[in-house]
């Protein structure tokens, strides 16, 4: 009885991931080998990091469109700095500078977003949409549209290497997710974030400043986008203004499938990570099965709908509003 209760309290997303994974192992030819699993894991890293960042903004009922565009900007700027073809010739210093610049770019645009949203009270939807255009435009201006290549070999090793079947990149992604998990669950800021997301006014009157909290959420989301840029650059070994163009739906999908409420105030980072893995796995498995991509798009759309419906039903049962 007790075990049953415990099993029931596990969030649905874990079951889906587990069931889907096992089913894929059994039924999908070519899926059940270590190399394939390693590829699967390395594919999911960028999505995990971005989803974690955007998750924070969704927690206070907002959204961050800029993060996908930042993926493009950071990879081309960072890539051009650390490239062996660049002015610094791919030295160790260039590498470090490149990484730093990428994170700072993310931070910078996070600050711009956060500032506009909290100071001018602009809806995040529009602000981040506008900054997305601007960031994408800047990336295009910076490169003229061409890709950036010639990553230093150390960086290439980092991008391709792995321990057993766990790519280094995954370790970065899990690290980011872990930090985000700790931030949301164990820290003062995390508690403030949930409070603001649940009831803006009550939080304000209880001495939690929504402005500061929301600002921090967007800054963190920006930083996550910067780190995601690094992982992307390492994974792809080239920077391109094209990155992230079609990723936003997957990011929102991960968050929603993970059971986060788009109205704010509720949702766990761990579930979002699971959501990202699930979305990634669906993509991969359907690809391997040779399903046309438009069906994959369609199926992902349906899964978002179904997941959101289920989430609402569960909430209805849990909390009598």
């Amino acid at each position, binding site marked *: 009885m007790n075990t049953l209760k415990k099993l029931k309290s596990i969030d649905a997303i874990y079951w889906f991931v587990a069931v889907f994974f096992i089913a894929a192992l059994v039924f999908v030819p070519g899926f059940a080998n270590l190399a394939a699993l390693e590829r699967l894991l390395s594919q999911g890293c960028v999505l995990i990091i971005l989803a974690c960042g955007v998750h924070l903004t969704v927690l206070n009922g907002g959204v961050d469109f800029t993060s996908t565009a930042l993926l493009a900007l950071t990879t081309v700027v960072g890539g051009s700095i650390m490239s062996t073809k660049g002015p610094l010739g791919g030295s160790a210093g260039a590498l470090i500078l490149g990484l730093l610049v990428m994170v700072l770019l993310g931070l910078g645009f996070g600050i711009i977003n956060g500032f506009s*949203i909290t100071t001018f009270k602009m809806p*995040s*939807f529009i602000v981040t949409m506008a900054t997305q255009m601007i960031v994408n*435009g800047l990336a295009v201006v910076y490169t003229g549209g061409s890709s950036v290549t010639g990553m230093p070999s150390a960086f290439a090793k980092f991008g391709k290497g792995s321990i057993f079947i766990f790519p280094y990149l995954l370790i970065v992604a899990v690290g980011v997710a872990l930090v985000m998990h700790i931030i949301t669950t164990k820290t003062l800021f995390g508690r403030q974030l949930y409070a603001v997301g649940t009831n803006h006014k009550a939080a304000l009157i209880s001495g939690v400043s929504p402005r500061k909290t929301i600002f921090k959420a967007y800054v963190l989301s920006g930083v996550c986008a910067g780190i995601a840029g690094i992982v992307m650059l390492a994974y792809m070994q080239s920077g391109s203004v094209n990155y992230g163009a079609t990723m936003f739906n997957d990011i*929102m999908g991960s968050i929603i499938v993970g059971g986060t409420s788009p109205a704010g105030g509720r949702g766990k980072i761990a579930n979002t990570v699971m959501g990202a893995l699930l979305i990634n796995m669906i993509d991969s498995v359907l690809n391997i099965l040779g399903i046309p991509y438009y069906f994959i798009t*369609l199926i992902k759309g349906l899964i978002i709908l179904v997941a*959101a419906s289920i989430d609402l039903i569960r909430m209805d049962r849990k909390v009598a509003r």
Partner: protein
Amino acid sequence: MEKVTARAGKTADGKRAKELFMDYGIYVILIAMIVFFTVQKPNFLTIGNILLILRTSSVLGIACVGMFFVLIVAGIDISVSMNMYISAVVGGTFLNNLGMPLPVCFVASCLCGLVIGSINGFFVTKVKIVPFIVTLATYSVARGMALFLTNQQMMFLDNKVMTLASAKFLGISAFVFIFLGVVVIAHIVLTCTQFGRQLYACGNNLQGANKMGINGPRTVFFAYMICGALCGIAGMLSACNLGVINPNFSQGDEFVVISSSVIGGASLFGGKGRVFPGAIIGIVMVQAIINGLTMIGASAYVYTIFRGVIIFLAVMVDSIKFSGEIR
């Protein structure tokens, strides 16, 4: 929230000026933009060019009108672009494969859009999922369906669509008349019918509306349905305009439509916005940016940045006076 009665003296004047600026800030930006472009290229401000901008605006303008309905009930519809795509494909199929006359094709795509809109409305009102998520999902679904129907290839439309695209009355494109017609009808529906006023009521306070005996869910449902139907018309119109439906048809247009609507005075928080002149101002402003940049021969690279900055500024001016919750 409550209006503070202004005191006499200078502060009041300053305040009034500030309020005036905020109320008409969008127009200030619009005028500044027009002046800028006109100085750079005097033929920017000619009747011909203004009509051209109107014409270019008309397709997405119709979708904008639809978006107004949804925004008024405090919703949002991300799926507009893909709704346009699949409706255009359906309309195009009627035209090409079944050889139907053009009006029938318009009815077909309008119905297709209506169905997508109804699906959105169903999930928003019955299942009560946040509209952003519902429409994000239907975006994917509609896109998948459209790509499936076209087999991911270009779809050429029968040449007779050109007659509509080039049709002119009094030297003004038929498109402009269709757009203005839709705006006028929508304006009348929103301001002079009970349904229209109920839309505003639902956007202001949905629970209250339900208690008042307004069928809130049904009203909201209709808003999505109307938005869908208008997107269907916009999609087919766009297809007629281009003569072809590419696989990337209207991709990304949801952002143009939403930002134009917000610039035009609709609020993401619902209950606010006038289709006339809001929808026209909004979409014309966005299209005028592109027109102006092309006219002054700007570098291709600055287009998105410029557009982003203008949207940012326009919304900023509109938001400063906003006193609600930050989202």
